[in-house]
């Protein structure tokens, strides 16, 4: 304990000294740093902050030092997080490499792969995206068709991925590919790392109902991939795929645990019910606001309890399906409530008649509809809970 307190003090003073003032407190989405070859910094402090943090391995605090990670214990990592929150330090790097690929490489990668890829993730040098879904393989991921055929020392990859987040901005993609027979479907899948600068890779952004385009279609045509880019055993990719989905679900559901910069529901209610203080005048909306806040609170307490219970260090289990399911449903419900509060003012698309904040809420309301689909639909999560947690028969 004494050691931890010492660590807390060191950390605090290091952060106070090294976190640039402009990287503290709320910031715009456009200031987020995702790294990669094509990174550009709107704010030079962002670059500085990333360099300082990654030099200590603190962009990936619990990864081993030998792979450029922070080498921190869970307790130390928590302290780091608390101290960053205390100072309101922004994350130096947002990265699917850190949240999704890294944990998988640590568990399934060989020594060479860890040494090759992890440090570049820690330093934000490589931006990764995820090549899982295909047009015919959504909820039924294992029916995927992208084919990788060994030709000498290289795999030749052909096929199409869909829902690749930010594929158009990424350097590398981790892909599920079919290397073995179609049936049984799960047995012929491998996990392959592909440099997107390879000839034959192309991407097209997908426009969503919200007007945003965070996803792409990704096409691979005769793309040649060195065979050492295979992670885990040949045709053994499904185990890795499932593990990674658990990490992904945790990311998505954690995302809904807090919403930092936006106006709270209570603030929105006060503003749009025209009631700066005291009891809100519309009993029905007031009750819905209370209910939503209470449900969010219950969800937060459940995340907290789960964290305490799994402190021992296990990764996320099937319960991650619950968080993914419930978190996204709750988020959709919350946006519906916001729209009810804003009334017609929450139904603009663009132009003068609406405030920018209102337009963002409308767009994010539409965006929220995808949360219960991406990363495994709500229906898939419920299936997983029924089967894995409750043991209900097939």
């Amino acid at each position, binding site marked *: 304990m004494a050691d931890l307190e010492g660590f807390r003090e060191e950390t605090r003073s290091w952060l106070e000294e090294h976190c640039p003032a402009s990287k503290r407190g709320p910031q715009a989405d456009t200031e987020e740093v995702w790294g990669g070859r094509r990174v550009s910094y709107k704010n030079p402090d962002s670059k500085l902050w990333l360099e300082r943090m990654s030099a200590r391995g603190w962009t990936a605090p619990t990864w081993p030092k030998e792979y450029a990670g922070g080498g921190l214990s869970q307790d130390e990592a928590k302290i780091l997080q608390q101290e960053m929150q205390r100072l309101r330090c922004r994350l130096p790097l947002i990265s699917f490499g850190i949240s999704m690929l890294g944990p998988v490489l640590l568990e399934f990668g060989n020594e060479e792969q860890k040494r090759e890829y992890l440090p570049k993730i820690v330093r934000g040098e490589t931006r990764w995206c995820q090549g899982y*879904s295909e047009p*015919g*393989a*959504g*909820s*039924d991921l294992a*029916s995927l068709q992208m084919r990788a055929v060994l030709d000498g020392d290289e795999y030749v990859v052909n096929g199409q991925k*869909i*829902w690749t987040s930010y594929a158009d901005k990424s350097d590398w993609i981790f892909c599920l590919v079919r290397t073995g027979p179609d049936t049984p479907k799960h047995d012929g899948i491998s996990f392959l790392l592909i440099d997107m600068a390879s000839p034959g890779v192309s991407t097209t952004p*997908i*426009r*969503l*109902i*919200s*007007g945003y385009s965070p996803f792409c279609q990704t096409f691979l045509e005769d793309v040649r991939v060195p065979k050492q880019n295979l992670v885990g055993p040949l045709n053994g990719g499904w185990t890795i795929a499932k593990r990674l989905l658990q990490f992904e679900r945790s990311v998505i559901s954690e995302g809904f645990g807090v919403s930092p910069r936006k106006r709270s529901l209570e603030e929105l209610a006060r503003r*749009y019910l025209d009631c700066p203080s005291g009891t809100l005048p519309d009993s*029905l*909306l007031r009750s819905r606001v209370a209910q939503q806040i209470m449900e969010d609170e219950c969800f937060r307490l459940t995340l907290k309890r789960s964290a305490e219970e799994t402190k021992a260090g296990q990764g996320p289990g099937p319960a991650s399906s619950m968080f993914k399911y419930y978190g996204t449903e709750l988020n*959709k419900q919350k946006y519906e409530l916001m*729209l*009810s509060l*804003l*009334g*017609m*003012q*929450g*139904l*603009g*698309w*663009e*132009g*003068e*008649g*609406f405030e920018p904040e209102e337009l963002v809420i*409308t767009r994010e309301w*539409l965006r929220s*509809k*995808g949360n*219960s*689909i*991406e990363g495994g*639909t*709500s*229906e898939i999560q*419920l299936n997983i809970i029924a089967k894995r947690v409750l043991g209900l028969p097939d």
Partner: protein
Amino acid sequence: MSLVLTEEQELLQETAREFVKQRSPLAKLRELRDTQDPVGFSRELWKEMAELGWVGIVFPEEYGGAGLGYAELGLVLEECGGQLVAEPFLSTVLLGGNAVLLAGNETQRKDVLPAVCGGERILALAHQETHRHDPYRVTLRAEASGGGYRLSGEKAFVLDGHVADQLVVVARTSEQVQSREGLSLFLVDADAKGVIRTPMHMVDSRNAARIRFEGLELDRSALLGEVGRAAAVLDRVLDRATVGLCAEMLGGIQEAFKRTLAFLKEREQFGVPIGSFQALKHRAAEMFCQIELARSVVLEALRALDEERADAPELASLAKARCADTYFLVGNEAIQMHGGIGVTDESEIGFFLKRARVAQMTLGDAAYHRDRFARLRGF
């Protein structure tokens, strides 16, 4: 009158279905949106609809209408709703047109309605002032000035107000805000000096306007109906418009459901159509029940308008609450059941969700109409 269609009505329904399919499928709305069409609908198409007699369906023959009823108009609106047709039935016929028909004197009717029925004149009702439907909450003032009136104040979310030729403006001539008394209607040329319009682009790709009246001077003849007594007319106009909107919503609900059902039968995952999964089946069956209920109440409400029944206001609120909830359910389920495809702009299914949300709030959401229903029932 029966809920079962007459032969004439069946013919009208088929014609409307065919016309909408050929001339104004949902792709049209996307095109208007993507080309950032400043009008947001097609004036030519509107003229064609007028020539087919649809615009004037409910107006008396003496004003160029067909002298038919809401049962008939409902059929057309339902078909239009299925393809999210953006032409101005709600603003021009149901709101503006009805205001002139119910409140106007013979001169006003003769001036306005034939032009409306001919598809040449677009109207809008400028009533709402805030982000919430609240018909007697009127602060825009009309003050006596010379022999006429001077209008000052602002309206918001005036449907099709950005292109309307004439506006029917609800103004306060006396009493306090929120009072049912003291309201008056005025017929105003939309391009008059002192009328400043800002377009509002809505999420459903339709348009409305924020309209400021800066001391607009009006002649006495601009008054529509009795001074200070507009509420009774306004109630009737809003009931008719609400029921008409519900018919449109019903069309959208049914179409979104139909497309979703087709998708459930077609889309395969795990080697079987996803419509074979029992959880989705039950949700689809639940939607079916909700839609059947919506259909019953909309048809009854249309009938009540035609029969000028005393329970028409109650039925209007019943229909709107029901359609709002059902469109919400179906719009959301449609997206979720379409999965990834459902959230892409490329798919048309998202347009229904967007229209559902706007239609839900327009002329009062379900909570508003439940409250109104309770008031009408006296509790």
